[in-house]
């Protein structure tokens, strides 16, 4: 273990420690609920971050996926199904919606990908708004209960915390795997990957399915947290805020989305208590980060640490920065196990 990795691990352990101890530090249910909101938003942002950071695909429709899952749970709850059934319906809806998203966007990239996902997000919003017999229209669905065993706010908080840690770990593992490396290869040069024999579209679809499934999971947690879903959850506004969170925190970093989510949620919910012009403040923060910390807060911090290490006399560590965007080379064609494109090779 090298030094920077030790620092990283200590930071993560400390973060988890604070997260676990939080309900015991004399915090009120309100603070716990606020932190829960941040963690859920951070989770959703992390799924967007995975697509942007590794796949170079900026999605403007992830709010729609999360909302679709939430509506699945809401609909099931309205039919009087138990929470187990809610989960099943939510997962089913999520998979279908993610698949449609993935299928329609897998052959696009850049601005076209952005537009396709934006349009799909609008479709979900439109359905939520208009299909009032299923979704309750603009009124939304209220009174969605979460399972008994996580009914208390603090047990639910631990559940969310655990889910967040698992999700982060999962995304990290995927990102570090050959699959993640191939995805980054596609991000950097689609044509090169295609000429190497990779089926770019299937990689994109797979990445979207992973990201979408986790986004749906976050949507389910959100609806269990607020007991409520309405079309605004699928609105463009929400999806744009997710991108803002990712950029604030740092594209491609592991904890950037959480930091971005914390900033956005706190400005929206806490700063707005005292400052009437809070949307301006959020805009200013965004502009400042774009101007002076192009890699986001987490990315810039990692850069700063690396720069300080370089000044350090101790041997430099160039292999895989601990928290910043990983930049390992594309694995040679032979090392990856098997994929759809193999048959295409002569």
């Amino acid at each position, binding site marked *: *273990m090298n030094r920077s990795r030790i620092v990283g691990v200590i930071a993560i*352990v400390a973060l*988890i420690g604070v997260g*676990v*101890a939080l*309900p*015991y530090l*004399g*915090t*009120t*249910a*309100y603070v*716990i*609920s*606020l932190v829960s*909101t941040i963690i859920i938003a951070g989770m959703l942002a992390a799924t967007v971050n995975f697509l942007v950071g590794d796949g170079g695909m900026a999605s403007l429709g992830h709010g729609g996926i999360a909302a679709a899952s939430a509506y699945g749970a809401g609909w099931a709850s309205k039919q009087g199904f138990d929470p187990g059934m809610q989960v099943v319906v939510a997962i089913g809806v999520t998979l279908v919606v993610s698949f449609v998203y993935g299928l329609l966007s897998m052959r696009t990239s850049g601005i076209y990908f952005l537009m396709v996902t934006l349009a799909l997000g609008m479709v979900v919003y439109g359905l939520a*708004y*208009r299909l*009032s*017999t299923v979704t*309750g*229209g*603009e*009124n*939304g669905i*209220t*009174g969605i209960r979460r399972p008994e065993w996580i009914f*208390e*706010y*603090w*047990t639910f908080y*631990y559940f969310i915390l655990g889910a967040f840690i698992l999700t982060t770990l999962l995304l990290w593992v995927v990102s570090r795997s050959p699959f993640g490396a191939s995805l980054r290869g596609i991000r950097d040069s689609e044509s090169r990957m295609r000429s190497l024999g990779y089926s770019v579209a299937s990689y994109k679809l797979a990445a979207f399915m992973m990201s979408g499934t986790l986004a749906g999971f976050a949507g389910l947690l*959100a609806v269990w947290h*607020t*007991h*409520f879903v*309405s*079309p*605004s*959850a699928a609105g463009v*506004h929400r999806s744009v805020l997710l991108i803002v969170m990712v950029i604030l925190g740092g594209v491609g970093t592991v904890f950037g989305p959480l930091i971005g989510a914390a900033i956005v949620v706190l400005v*929206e*919910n806490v700063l*707005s*208590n005292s400052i*009437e*012009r*809070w*949307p301006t403040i959020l805009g200013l923060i965004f502009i400042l980060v774009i101007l002076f910390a192009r890699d986001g807060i987490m990315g810039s911090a990692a850069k700063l640490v690396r720069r300080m290490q370089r000044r350090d006399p101790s041997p430099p560590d160039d292999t895989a920065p601990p928290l910043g965007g990983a930049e390992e080379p594309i694995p040679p064609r032979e090392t990856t196990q098997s994929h759809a494109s193999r048959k295409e090779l002569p």
Partner: protein
Amino acid sequence: MRSTKTRARGRWSALAGLGAAAALVLTACAPPGAAPDDEGGGGGGGEQGGTLKVGYISPITGNFAIAGQEMVDGWNLYWELNGDEVNGVTVETIVEDDAGNPETSLTKAKKLVELDEVDIVVGPLLANTALATAAYTSSVGIPNLHPVAAADDLTQRSANDLTVRTGSMSGSQMNYPGGKWAAEQGHKTAVTLCPDYAFGWESCAGFKQGFEEEGGEVVAQYWFPNGTSDFSTYVSQIQSANADIAFVGTAGGAPGPDFLKSYLGLGLGQSQPLLMNCCGMDQATLRALGSEIVGFNSVSWWAEGRDSDTVREFSEAYGENFEGKIPSANVAGGYMTASLVAKVLEENGLVTGADLVSAIADTTFDDSIFGEVSFDDYNNFVGPVYIREVQEVDGKYLNVPIETYENVDQWLGKDPEEALSQPTYSQSFQGE
């Protein structure tokens, strides 16, 4: 190399084990704050003195900022005029902004209840934010008053003992007498145009049921999406429907004037009788079109031109404080809610929780700014609905009532059970 790796792995698993054990221990015992505290629920009653803390949630920023600010202005105006101390009880208000976003409304409601320990939550404004907030506040035993929110379900399918609609009517309720009136004027057929979402569906359903009950027939219903600014196609559809009267509803803002400009532009002003709803013919529309729409009719539970001392006092006070403006329904809703709270405090001293709600529900006004008002068993506003006509009064354009339907309730002539067993209104279901 190998040995250090194994050692590292050993240390890792030890660490992981430790972490897991700690997590288990911690989750096994509830944190100190977790014990359920059951304040609020029952509510205290009848004490002298003290403070009534009010949390006021409204969208002061975002797309609905104008309506949201008006709703706050109405509430504040009452306390400025009458002092914030009633019967020895001081009313303290904390205003929170939700930007029209239901997740933010919920967080703000939690903040107000748990951190600020408010006794009641007032607001917010939009249907989805109102329903989300009401569900939360009722679960923690805090009363929730709604000065403006018009969603039918707030006092129907989602009604609860702690939620009161204090300053407005439900979407179908406020337009039902409009249908009756149109039929009573001898119109046999009608065409409707409403915004294509819950409020519009409810509004047009109210009109349609009133009209058909009196023997009329709605021959065509058109819906415009939110954000429509060019109404010429809708106006020509109305023209080609060839009905005796057109009913047009909007949710306030630009669509009202925009529709009327197309309507007048295509020369229907003289030939096609028209009835607008509350918000399509509000002060914003009157300011924009003024003399062009004198004599036009609309139906609403709020009439700023009503000949009554309470309305005159309220309008003058509002004008003095806000650059000569004339109060809208949103201001009136906020003001009405404040006068209701004040009246309850006057009669009962400091009451909170369920006692406060039952005191509010028992309150009746002989002449409030809305006229004679009481509350039904589902805590909904029961009061007069006015058929209004635009008139010029002392150089200002006002909606002056020409006919009044007293004691209009939310059931549209049905009994509550029957009304509640219907599906919610939509394009395809407009009531039987």
